[in-house]
């Protein structure tokens, strides 16, 4: 589920430009003449944002150049279909969001609602409407003790690049839906934090559920995606100790269960599993010049079926923000997780990601951002000798001009490419987006 959260933090589907990770604001750029003040109503601040833009994508279906260029193909059952080749298109994009923050002295209630709409000029099948709504709260019991809770839902299109939504047929054809697969992700969680003096203890119980809609493929056949529906209850506990101000060590453990609604998927494979993750790490803040978190650990995911290869791996992670000057921040991220898969020959895949985001305040109202990321997905094969790994590299640039406290405009570019042991899953994609936005 972690990768879904990663996608959710980026904007749009086909126009997922800009940063892959959440980037903190430059510390010294907060509170200037261009910072939105929000709308204060009662005990809450609301921060609405609306953005309208035009985007271009030179490879909407994320296909390699080698895909068969014929207009019509014959399927294995005699049905015919137009081949999806590498195609470009422009789209009108509209994004809206409202963040809500309480201003209470004790307790807290925050929320975020987002909407992402896109209409393509030619490829109307790719039109999208993605929505999300989330609330999180904190109930203070006494100093250092608090209950926490969260609830939310997201409905969006699965990326065309997802290997779970496309099936290679031979070396020249990718079979996928006439329209992108749509899914809904729901989550709810409760927790408790206890921080007596230097010691900190927290425990969380979360429940996540994801459901996929059926889709019609390019041969007009219905693809039943209900076998991908699953839930993931998990429990996490963490103990931390503050060695000195702004430097603390912690140990965290998580156990989880992945329960598929159907015992067997469409390939007859039983995919439910249980897993655990343990990490040890350190949080630190060095004079506001280097802020972050590093950790190492171990994860293991065991499948209920004996035919599915269990996954185990060392874990490493890092989230560092370095401020080399007061105008520039550099954000480093490292992460590794196990992700679910629908591949017939793989139980799941180990996803390792590294990324860097550089943000620079050229002037108070001109923010430049550059980012680069690398992801290695290693599919854990059930078939001896079979290999299916993929490397995804991304590079992005963004220039944001704050016209006033209310209005802004941005120009974004992103290039993404995937190399794969399965050649037909490779692609290169370039996207651009020009927007005009208003915020309060």
């Amino acid at each position: 589920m972690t990768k879904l959260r990663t996608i959710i933090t980026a904007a749009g589907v086909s126009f997922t430009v800009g940063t892959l990770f959440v980037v903190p604001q430059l510390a010294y750029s907060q509170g200037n003449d261009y910072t939105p003040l929000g709308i204060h109503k009662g005990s809450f601040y609301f921060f609405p944002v609306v953005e309208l833009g035009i985007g271009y994508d030179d490879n909407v279906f994320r296909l390699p150049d080698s895909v068969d260029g014929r207009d019509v193909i014959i399927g294995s059952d005699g049905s015919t279909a137009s081949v999806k080749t590498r195609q470009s298109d422009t789209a009108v994009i509209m994004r809206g969001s409202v963040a809500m923050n309480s201003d209470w002295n004790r307790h807290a209630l925050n929320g975020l609602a987002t909407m992402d709409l896109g209409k393509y000029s030619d490829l109307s099948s790719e039109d999208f409407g993605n929505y999300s709504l989330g609330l999180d709260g904190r109930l203070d019991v006494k100093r250092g003790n608090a209950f926490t809770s969260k609830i939310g839902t997201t409905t969006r299109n699965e990326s065309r690049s997802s290997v779970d939504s496309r099936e290679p047929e031979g070396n020249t054809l990718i079979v996928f839906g006439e329209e992108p697969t749509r899914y809904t992700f729901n989550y709810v969680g409760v927790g408790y934090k206890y921080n007596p003096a230097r010691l900190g203890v927290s425990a969380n119980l979360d429940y996540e559920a994801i459901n996929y809609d059926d889709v019609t493929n390019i041969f007009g056949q219905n693809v039943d995606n209900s076998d991908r529906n699953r839930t993931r209850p998990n429990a996490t506990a963490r103990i931390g100790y503050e060695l000195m101000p702004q430097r603390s060590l912690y140990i965290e453990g998580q156990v989880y269960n992945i329960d598929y609604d159907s015992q067997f998927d469409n390939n007859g494979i039983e995919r439910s599993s249980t897993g655990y993750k343990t990490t040890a790490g350190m949080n630190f803040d060095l004079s506001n010049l280097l802020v972050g978190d590093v950790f190492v650990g171990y994860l293991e995911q065991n499948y209920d079926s004996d035919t599915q290869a269990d996954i185990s791996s060392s874990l490493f992670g890092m989230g560092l923000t370095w401020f080399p000057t007061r105008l520039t921040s550099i954000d480093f991220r490292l992460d590794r997780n196990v992700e679910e898969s629908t591949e017939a020959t793989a139980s799941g895949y180990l996803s390792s990601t590294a990324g860097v985001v550089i943000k620079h305040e050229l002037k108070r109202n001109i923010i430049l951002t550059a980012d680069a990321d690398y992801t290695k997905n290693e599919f854990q094969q059930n078939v001896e000798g079979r290999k299916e790994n993929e490397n995804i590299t991304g590079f992005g640039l963004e220039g944001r001009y704050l016209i006033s406290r209310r209005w802004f405009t941005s120009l974004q570019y992103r290039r993404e490419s995937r190399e794969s042991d399965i050649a037909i899953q490779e692609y290169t994609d370039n996207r651009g987006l020009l927007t005009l936005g208003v915020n309060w």
Partner: protein
Amino acid sequence: MSRFFSLSLFLSLLLLFAGPLYAAANNQPDANYQLGAGDKLSITVFNQEDLSGEYTINGSGRFTMPFIDKIQAAGLTIPDLIELIIGKLKPDYLLNPRVSIEVLNFRPYYIIGEVSSPGAYPFVEGITYLNAVAIAGGFSYRARQKYVMVKRKDDDAEGKEVKLKLNSFVLPGDIIRVTERLF
């Protein structure tokens, strides 16, 4: 007689140069300092209490003295002003006027741009541009900290902005601009 003459000459010379010498001992600007709007002067005409007093140069660079009316002082050095006043008093009002001038308050300097508290600040002899930035609350996070841009008015003409290092000395009336850096 010749002895009396020598003593008189000596005393006259002493009085003639008393103003500036006395001024130097009391932290007064050097002889090349050009007066400007905002400077407050103490003018003493020997044995003439009606003419002596404190005068402030107004925005148009002038001040008014009894008998003489308006005096255009902006752009003049103190010796030049002494000479001007003597020229206006003599010979219609006084045969041999003795004038001394002291600057009581200098005109302020101004600091704008990337500092915490831009504005006008009273001039203090001997401060550098770095001192001036500190008095104005320090650099903002976007400030260029290697030099400042300074504009000085020459006479009644608009001064040109020049780049000066932070250890240079501030002069009264300086308009100091701390610029913004891009990187």
